[in-house]
Each structure stands twice: as structure tokens, then as C-alpha cells.
């Protein structure tokens, strides 16, 4: 293209021109190592992926204009972490404590209420997002439709923080609402199964207070499960929520993924996936140590009874 469009090559013999083009193509392929067999290339790709050498994006640029996939991803991670972090941490702890309280009052009105409402979690967060936008942005006009900060950007730091928080409410709320009741229901059922164990009955027979039973006999054995789901939640945070971010035009990693797919920008897609795979692997690795710390039944290198 560069050659055929160049005015100074206009008088060139077509054959010479063709040769020149082919030569350039070969040189370019050699530069990108595309002339090597697929197996060798795969190994090189794998090496790059493992060393987090994510390369350059084909079409996308970061907001500062960089083509580096790393920069594109790094730029968006704070926003994703802010949104997902707020939503997931609130969701996790609130549902956990509510579930614990409910499992104590099993069969009460609130218990039944949660069970009845738990199917609401079949609806994805973006869907609640639409309703929340409708109510709070379109009709009541209290909160913004989307985005991350007011335009123009407030001058002082306090104003900026408040503005971001204001934009954070709706997307975070939709993420929380969509899994709130199911999460409570699951934890509650989980706690109930554990509280019907014999040793809990024994503890009750001994006359221990409800708080003590909860802490020592229910929470302690369920700790590995709680930690696992907490860790999985932590890594889940990093990928962002593609559609929720799209609906709220939140500039997070999910939107980057969506945009990259729309532009066929393979390096960016691969980059986000590698990041996720890395986090998953690290978390699973670390979890094994944590289990050993909290659950005496798990012994490193113990063999036999170790699970």
C-alpha cells in the first residue's frame, strides 16, 4: 500500500514494484516472526503471556494515547476495582451477617421473605440497572444516568470524591440488588446445614451462649468455605462486569473488553484473559496455605487424611 501509493514510484515498472512490495511483506513477516512454524510461535506467545509481556493493541489506545495493552488495562483497573470492590464487599459482608442472623431465626417471617425473594437473583445486574436508571435518573432526577464524574470536573478534591460517589451509587446498587437475596439464601442454608451437626447440639446441651456456639461451632468449621468464596469474589472483581459497565457507561475493564471485542483487538482480549488466569492461579495457590492455617484438619504434606 505504502509503495503503490507513493508518487515517486509512479513511473516504476509494475514488476519491480511488485517485487518491492513482496520484499517488504517478507521483511515485515520476519520482523514479527510470522515466518516461523506455528508451534514455535505458540511457545513464544506463551512465553510472552507468562511474562506478562502483553504487547501492543491493534486499534485501541489508552486515554493518554498509549498503544500498550498494559497501559490500557492499568488505566481502567482502578475504576473497575472501585465499582466491583464497593459492590462485592458490601454484598459479601452484609449478606453473610444477615444470613447468620436468619439462620438463628429459622422459619420466621424474614426467613420466609428471603426465600420468597431469592428467585429475583435470576435477573442479571444490568437489568436492575435499567430499572434503577429509570427510577432515580429519569423520573426522580436525583442521580446521574451513567459515567464516572460530573462534567465539568469539580475543582476541589472533596467535590471530585463526592461526584464519583454519586455516580457510583446506581451501578453498585444494581450489582448488589441482583445477587442480594440469593446470596443470603445460600449462606443461610449453608449455616443451617452446619448448625444441625451433632456437636452443635452438644454445645447447646452444655448451655453455651448462642454467640459462643455461633463463633466456635458454626463459623469455625465453615471458615474455609467462607474464605474460598471471599477469594473467588476478590478475583471476580478484576474482570469487571461487561454489561453493567456498558449500561452505566462506567469506564472499567469490562467496557475495555467489550470495546476490544467490537474492534477485533485480539491483544487486549488476550491480555485481560491472561490477567484473570494469573489471578485465579495465584488465588488458588494461596488458598491452600490459608486452609492449612484455619482448618487444622488440613495438613501440608500430611498425606492420608489431608483433603
Amino acid at each position, binding site marked *: 500500500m505504502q509503495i503503490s501509493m507513493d508518487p515517486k514510484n509512479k513511473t516504476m515498472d509494475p514488476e519491480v514494484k511488485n517485487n518491492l512490495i513482496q520484499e517488504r511483506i517478507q521483511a515485515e513477516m520476519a520482523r514479527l516472526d510470522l515466518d516461523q512454524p506455528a508451534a514455535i510461535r505458540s511457545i513464544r506467545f506463551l512465553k510472552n503471556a507468562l511474562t506478562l509481556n502483553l504487547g501492543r493493541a491493534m486499534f485501541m489506545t489508552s486515554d493518554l494515547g498509549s498503544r500498550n495493552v498494559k497501559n490500557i488495562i492499568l488505566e481502567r483497573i482502578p475504576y473497575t476495582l472501585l465499582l466491583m470492590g464497593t459492590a462485592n464487599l458490601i454484598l459479601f459482608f452484609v449478606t453473610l451477617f444477615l444470613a447468620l442472623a436468619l439462620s438463628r431465626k429459622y422459619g420466621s417471617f424474614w426467613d420466609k421473605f428471603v426465600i420468597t425473594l431469592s428467585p429475583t437473583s435470576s*435477573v442479571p445486574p444490568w437489568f436492575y440497572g435499567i430499572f434503577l436508571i429509570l427510577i432515580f435518573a429519569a423520573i426522580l432526577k436525583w442521580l446521574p444516568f451513567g459515567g464516572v464524574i460530573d462534567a465539568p470536573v469539580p475543582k476541589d478534591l472533596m467535590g471530585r470524591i463526592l461526584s464519583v460517589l454519586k455516580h457510583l451509587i446506581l451501578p453498585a446498587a444494581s450489582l448488589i440488588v441482583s445477587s442480594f437475596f440469593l446470596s443470603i439464601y445460600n449462606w443461610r442454608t449453608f449455616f443451617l446445614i452446619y448448625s444441625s451437626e451433632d456437636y452443635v447440639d452438644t454445645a447447646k446441651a452444655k448451655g453455651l451462649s448462642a454467640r459462643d456456639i455461633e463463633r466456635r461451632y458454626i463459623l469455625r468449621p465453615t471458615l474455609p468455605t467462607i474464605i474460598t468464596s471471599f477469594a473467588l469474589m476478590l478475583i471476580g472483581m478484576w474482570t469487571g462486569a461487561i454489561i453493567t459497565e456498558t449500561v452505566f457507561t462506567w469506564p472499567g475493564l469490562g467496557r475495555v473488553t467489550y470495546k476490544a471485542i467490537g474492534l477485533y483487538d485480539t491483544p487486549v482480549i488476550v491480555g485481560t484473559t491472561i490477567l484473570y488466569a494469573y489471578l485465579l492461579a495465584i488465588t488458588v495457590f494461596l488458598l491452600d496455605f490459608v486452609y492449612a492455617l484455619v482448618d487444622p484438619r488440613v495438613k501440608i504434606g500430611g498425606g492420608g487424611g489431608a483433603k
Partner: protein
Amino acid sequence: MKNFLNTLREIGKYPTAIFGVIVVLALIIVAVVVIIKIPYDQAISTWRGGESIVYKNPRNVPPKWYNWFRAEKLVESFDMKEGDEGVSSVTTVTEGGTTITTFTFEFDHSYTSFPQDMVLYFNSEYETQQPFVAIKLFTPDEREIKIASFALTKSHTYPMLQDQKLQKRLNNVVPNIGLFLDPDVEEQIPVQGTYRLEIQATIFESNSVVHPEFVLHGQVFGWAGTDHMRRDLSLPLLWGIPIALSFGLLAALGTSLLTMIIAAFGTWYGGFWDALIQRITEVNMVLPFLSILIMVGTFYSRSIWTILGATIALSIFTGGIKSYRAMFTQVKESTYIEAARSYGAGDGRIIFKYLIPRMIPLLLPGLISAVPSFVFLEASLALLGIGDPVLPTWGKMINEAYGNAALYRGWYYWILEPAVLLMITGLGFASLGFALDRIFNPRLRGV
């Protein structure tokens, strides 16, 4: 049969489950009726048709039932042609052989608001001499407004809203408002009462004819309103039901059945096959599901069946396979399997006749609970812009509404209608699945 009845009785104990059953049954019935009443080809051609199908529809207006909740009614749309009530014609023949036909369209306007547009469509037949029409409007307070006069082509459209000359004559008020204005009042209030639109057609040839049709685009239309391309939204709402149901049910069925069969094979043969399935599952769980689906959609085909296949393929090797594996490992050691082995049953026989049937009660709640997630998946994909390009679906509706900033501009019905339907579908299946889970899953009994 007795088992089935028992299950039904159990379901009756859960009010949410009854709600779920009613919703699911109603949806299935409506879906069947829709497919029979509006065949696929007709639905597609109506949905993707042009002006000839939507010419009676106003643009972006809410449904009729909006008026039930409003004190000030919005103008309803209507169209009139010869033979309809309120349309009359008088024909006189002059000496020179010219025919003059006067069509009168009478319509009531008892609203405090104005219509969106008024359009006249003419169909005429002639050989060389074009017929000529003169249009006048008589208001209820007996004023006469000259609208326009022009020669007709064979099929002529006259949108009053776009007539600049008429607008000038109405003191620069747009015609859809200006024609109805009360001249004695300063605010924009329409004169209420019966309007008379008179079209005087002069026909010069003996065998030429003129057929006028008057269409008034109101502020409400139909049972579902219209979109930015003036299409009636009731079509995607109705057709969305069979599409959502078939996608959700097929995906859920395919995924759960295949997952179960593969898990059964893996556990039965053990060793290498089991390990392979476990590794595939772990790899598949890391892969971003939505991204792959979007890539299939953009690179290969956006047909709903391709997406369905990809969805099933990607959803087989997920967490489900691990939990089935755990259950199968238990069942594998039971005595009745041992008995089967002792009489010399083959691997296939044991898997399909003894292992899998044991799990069917567990399959059902999982299957039904999985339906909503797939229904919403289809909507999510459409929202991301990779829905099926041909089919009218709920997700497509939301996507288009979103693309046109419907919430921002106050066209709430456009998003709310499909959203409410999606929600009802999702909740119906989910509550039924929940109840079934509690009935069939012995661990949850009494909890």
C-alpha cells in the same frame, strides 16, 4: 404417575411455585398461539417491512392504555378511507366530461393535545391527464382552512406537517397544531368537536379514478406503542416469547443433559478420561464466557442457533460437571451397580440405565433454574449488539431503545414492556426451579 402427582401436590405447598407454574404454562400457551397466528415469515416481513407497513403508525408514541391513567387524554391514531364510517363522497359530472368527486372525512377531536402528523395518501389511475385535488378543512367553529391543491401522481403522499406554504398561511405554526388552534385564545388550545376534511378531486378522463386515504398520527398507538422506525412494538413483544422460551429451554436442556452424560462417562471410566474432563473444565472456567460468545457472534454468525450451540458447548464444562461428578462417584459404589456388574452389564448399559436415571430428579430443578439465565443471556447479547439480526426479540427491543436514549427522552414504555416480560419469565422459571430444588434435594428438606 403416582410420583408425578405427589410432586404436583408438593409443588402446591409452595405459593411461589404455583406462581411459577402459572407463568410458565401461560408463556408456553401464548408462545404456541403466537407462532400459529403470526407465522415466522409474516413476522419477519412485518418487522423488517418498510413504509407500506408502518404508514399508519406514528413515531415513538406510547401504547393506548396510557390514556387509562391520564386525566388529559392523548390523541389516538386512526386512518379512514372510502367505505369507512364518517367518509362520504359526492360525484357530479360537468358538461365537458370532467368528473368532480368530493370526499368528506369527518372526525372527532375531543382532546386538549394535538396529533403528531396528518397524512393523505392518494391512489389514482389515469392515462395522460393527472387528476387534480383541492383540500380544505372545516373546523367545528365553521372556519374554512384551505390546505393545499395539487395534481396527483399515481400514488401520491401528502404529509401536512411538511408543507411549508401551509405553515406560512397558519401564521408560522406547524400544521399539525395550527389547523386545530382556536384563534380567539392566546394559548395553544385546540378547538374540540367534529372536523370535516374535504377533498375535491377533479378527474379529466372518463375511466380514471382517485382513492384518498386519510391517516392521523396520534400520540398513542396500539397496545404496545411504536419505536423510532414507526414499527408496532407488539410484534417483538409477542414474538419475543417463543424465541426466549425456545432459547432458554433448549440451552438449559442441552447443557444439563450433556453435562450429566459427560460427567457419568468420566466417573465411570475414571483414570485418563476423568482427568481430561476435569482439566478441560478448569481451563474452560477461566475462559471469559461472554467474550467468546461475542467473538463467535462477530466472526462467525449471529444467527440465534449458532449462538445457542456455542452457549451449550461452553456451558457444559463448568461447575455443574464437578458437582455431578461428586454425586456419581457416590452412586458408582452402590450395591445395585455392583449387582449390575455381576450379571455382566456393559459399560453403556450401566451408564444409561443405572447411573443417569438415578440423577434425573436432581436434573429437573437444575434445568428449570437454568432457564432464566439463558433467557437473560440472549437479552444480554442483544443488548451488546450481537443479537440475531433478523428476529424481533426482547433483547433487541431493549438494545434499540437504549441506542435511542429512550430512558433519557422519556419513552419509558419502550424499555419497560420487554423488561417486565423478561422479568416475569425469569421469576416464573426461577421460583419453580427453587421449589423443585427444595422438593427433590433431600439435603434441603425441612431446611
